[in-house]
């Protein structure tokens, strides 16, 4: 009976994890993907830990599983908030067309990938004159 309850809870948790992963794969911009991964991922992992607590049953396992669930529930919203804020500020693309945080947070004009794409050329351009002047001194910036 206990095994049956544990398996049901486990199946629910794995379904949540699988749906969260499907959202991470299928959604279009980083904020939508975060919406899938933080909430459904937290519930799925918590349900799997609860299943472990139910199936194992001894006091140590139950305490550790409850502490893990508490830790996940306390930290994943914080991590999601920080990551979403950083993604917005760094200018990652928004596919929905609306920008509710316009004027509230500073936002870069283009995404971080567009801004860092020219770094290899700039480094090469900065290194090339030094290499021409002093062939052995390319390590100097």
């Amino acid at each position: 009976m206990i095994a049956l309850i544990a398996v049901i809870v486990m199946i629910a948790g794995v379904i949540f994890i699988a749906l969260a992963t499907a959202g991470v794969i299928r959604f279009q911009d980083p904020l939508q993907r975060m919406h899938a991964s933080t909430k459904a991922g937290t519930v799925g992992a918590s349900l799997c830990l609860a299943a472990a607590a139910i199936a194992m049953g001894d006091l140590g396992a139950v305490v550790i599983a409850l502490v893990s669930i508490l830790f996940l529930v306390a930290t994943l919203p914080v991590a999601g908030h920080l990551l979403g804020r950083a993604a917005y500020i760094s200018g990652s693309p928004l596919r929905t067309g609306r920008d509710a945080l316009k004027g509230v947070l500073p936002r870069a004009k283009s995404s971080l990938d567009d801004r860092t794409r020219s770094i290899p050329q700039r480094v090469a351009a900065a290194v090339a004159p030094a290499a021409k002047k002093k062939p052995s001194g390319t390590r100097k910036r």
Partner: protein
Amino acid sequence: MFESMDAFLAIATASLLVVLGLSALGAASRMIFGPGYADRFVALDMLTGVAVSVCALTAILTGRREFLDVGLGVALIGFLATIGFAAFLEKKEREQK
């Protein structure tokens, strides 16, 4: 159908571990092919959740309590990694100005 409840639990856990492995592969593909840095960091967050679930199911499958400790450690390290990468994303922008 099954010899005992333990065999039923073991078979169910093993098959669910396979599903979790497929989920981890999907999140890893988003991490590899993700178009931007933010996508990769979100995929890392997702992989942390999958890893904690794998630890819990492995604890059930083997009956060893230590895997739950491993899951707690993975959750802690994933939280710190996500915060570090978020700080990295914000700092890059401030240096550009």
